[in-house]
C-alpha cells in the first residue's frame, strides 16, 4: 500500500473566518453607533436649553420653581430630582427586606416549594406591565391611603409602594442567586458551632452575601428611578417639594411624560424636558458605575 508522504496541510478556511469576523464587527458597530447616537441626541437637545435658550445650569439644578408656560418662564428642577430620589430610595427600603426574606425562604427554608411556587410568582410580578401597576395604585392604594392617613393619598408614599412591588422581583432574584452560591461549608460550620438556623442566617449568611445583595438593591433603585407611567398615576404631579409623604409631588420621569406631548419640538419648554431627560440619563450612568464598582469588590 502506498502511503502518501505528504502531510495533509490544513486548508485555511479564510473565507469563513473573514465572514464571521466582519459580521460580528458589523453587529457591534451597529450597537455602538445606536447607543452613541442616542446619547448624543439627548445630550444635544438637553444642552440646547442652556446654550440656545440661555437657561442657567445652576438654576435648573437647584431652582425650586418650575413654570415653563408662564409669562416669565422659570425652570427649577430641584422638586423633580428630590421626588425621583426619595421615591426610589424609599421603594428600595421597603423592597429590600421583603426581597431578602423571600430569597431566604426560597433557598433555605423550603427549596422545593420555592422552586415550584415562589419562583413563578416572582416572575409573574416581574412580567406585569407598569401601567397595570399604576392603574391598580390609582384605584386601590390612593383611596386606601386617603382614608387611613391624613393627606391626599397621592404622594411619595403611594409612589414608593407601587415602585417597591415593581423592583421586588429584581431584588429577590439577585438575592436568591447570592444565597444559592454561598458555600455549604460556611453554614455547616456555623451549625457545628451550635448556632440555630435563624442565628446562622442573621449573623453569617446576611453579612456574607451583603455585597451581592447591594448589587441587587442598586439595580432596583436604578429601575425605580427610570419608571415613568406607574409613578405618574399615583404621585400627584405638583412641581413642588412636599411637606409630607402624602402630599402631591413630582419626579423627573413623571414630569416628562406629563408634558411631552403638549410641547412642540424646538420650543424652550420642549428643550427643558430634554434637559430633564439628560439628568435621568446621567443618573443611569452613575448607577451603572456604582453597580460595576460593587461587583468588582468581590470580597469573601
Amino acid at each position, binding site marked *: 500500500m502506498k502511503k502518501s508522504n505528504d502531510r495533509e496541510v490544513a486548508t485555511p478556511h479564510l473565507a469563513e473566518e473573514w465572514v464571521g469576523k466582519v459580521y460580528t464587527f458589523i453587529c457591534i458597530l451597529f450597537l455602538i453607533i445606536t447607543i452613541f447616537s442616542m446619547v448624543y441626541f439627548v445630550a444635544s437637545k438637553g444642552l440646547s436649553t442652556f446654550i440656545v435658550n440661555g437657561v442657567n445650569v445652576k438654576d435648573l439644578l437647584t431652582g425650586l420653581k418650575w*413654570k*415653563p*408656560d408662564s409669562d416669565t418662564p422659570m425652570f427649577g428642577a430641584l422638586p423633580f430630582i428630590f421626588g425621583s430620589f426619595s421615591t426610589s430610595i424609599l421603594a428600595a427600603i421597603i423592597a429590600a427586606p421583603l426581597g431578602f426574606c423571600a430569597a431566604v425562604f426560597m433557598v433555605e427554608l423550603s427549596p422545593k416549594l420555592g422552586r415550584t411556587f415562589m419562583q413563578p410568582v416572582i416572575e409573574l410580578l416581574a412580567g406585569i406591565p407598569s401601567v397595570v401597576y399604576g392603574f391598580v395604585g*390609582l384605584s386601590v392604594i390612593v383611596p386606601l391611603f386617603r382614608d387611613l392617613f391624613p393627606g391626599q393619598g397621592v404622594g411619595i408614599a403611594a409612589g414608593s409602594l407601587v415602585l417597591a412591588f415593581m423592583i421586588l422581583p429584581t431584588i429577590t432574584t439577585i438575592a436568591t442567586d447570592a444565597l444559592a452560591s454561598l458555600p455549604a461549608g460556611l453554614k455547616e460550620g456555623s451549625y457545628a458551632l451550635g448556632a440555630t438556623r435563624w442565628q446562622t442566617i442573621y449573623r453569617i449568611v446576611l453579612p456574607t452575601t451583603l455585597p451581592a445583595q447591594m448589587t441587587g438593591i442598586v439595580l432596583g433603585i436604578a429601575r425605580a428611578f427610570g419608571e415613568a407611567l406607574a409613578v405618574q398615576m399615583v404621585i400627584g404631579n*405638583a412641581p*413642588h417639594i412636599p411637606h409630607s409623604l402624602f402630599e*402631591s409631588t413630582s419626579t423627573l420621569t413623571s414630569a416628562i411624560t406629563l408634558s411631552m406631548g403638549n*410641547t*412642540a419640538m424646538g420650543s424652550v419648554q420642549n428643550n427643558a424636558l430634554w434637559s430633564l431627560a439628560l439628568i435621568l440619563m446621567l443618573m443611569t450612568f452613575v448607577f451603572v458605575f456604582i453597580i460595576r464598582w460593587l461587583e468588582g469588590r468581590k470580597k469573601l
Partner: protein
Amino acid sequence: MKKSLIVTMALTLSLSLAACGNNTNNGANNGNAAATNNATTNNTASADLSGSILASGSTALQPLVDQVSKEFMDKNSGVSIQVQGGGSGTGLTQVSEGQAQIGNSDVFAEEKLDSAKAAELVDHQVAVVAMAAVTNKDVGVDNLTKQQLVDIFTGKVTNWKEVGGKDEKIQIVNRPSSSGTRATFEKFALGTKTEDLEGSIQEDASGTVKKLVSETPGAIGYLALSYLDDSVTAVKYEGVDANVDNVANGTYPVWAYEHMYTKGEPDAATKAFLDYMVSEEIQNGDVVEMGYIPASKMEVKRDALGNVTK
C-alpha cells in the same frame, strides 16, 4: 402523540388570539388592506381617490377623527388614513416638518410654534369643544363666578365654605401646564394663567381627571363636555349652564376650536377627507354624538388672539 397535541393547542391558541385581535384592529387592517390595494390600483387610472394620510396630534380630537376616518375609508377604498395621538404639540410639530399630512390641535398653531412655522400651516376648524368646571358630588356648589374660580385656582380660597359649599378643603385636580385644555380653561374661564400650587394634583388624561374628581372629597377640575356624566357635578359658570346651545349663542365662553392643520394647501385625498369632516352628515352626526359641537352651529367666531365676533 404529546408533541402533536401541544402543536395543535398552540395553533388553536394563536388563531383565537388573532381572531380576538382582529376585531379591535379592524381599523388598522382596513388601513393595511387599503394600502396594499393602493399599490396595485395606483397604476389603474380611476376616478377614485388614492393616497395615504397620517393625522396625528390632539388626543381630545382623536376619537372623532378616528371614527370619521373609518367611515371615509369605507367609502374610498383607495385611501388609507392613520390616526395617532401624541398631544397637540406633537401634532403641530409633525405637520410642520412634513411627517404628518394633518396635525390635530386643540390650540391655534401660533400658540405653540413660532410665527414663521405657523404661517405655513393652513387651519381647518372642524368642531368646537366646550369645557365645564366639575366638582365632587359632595361639595354642594352648583354655580361659580369667574372671580371665585380664579380665587380657587390661585389658592386664595382653600375651603369650600368660603364659596357657599360644605366645610371641606378644596382639592384641585389640574391638567399639566402645557395642556391645550388647560390653556383654554385659563384663557376663557379664568382670564389669567395660574401657577401649579403646592398640594394640587395634575393628571394628563381627562379620564383620570374625572376619576380623581369623582373619588376625592372636595375635588374640583375641568373636563370637556363629552366627558361629563353622573359621577361628577358640572358647575355653572357665572350662572350660565354648560350646554351646547349656550356655547353656540356665545353666552358660555369656555370653548375652543378643534383644528386640523395642513402644511400649505392639502393634496387631493387630504382635501377630500377634510371636506368630509366638515360636511353636514358628519357635523350633525358623529360630531354631535361624540360630544363635540359642530363649527357651523356656532353663532360667534373667535380668532387666534381671542377676539370674539358675531
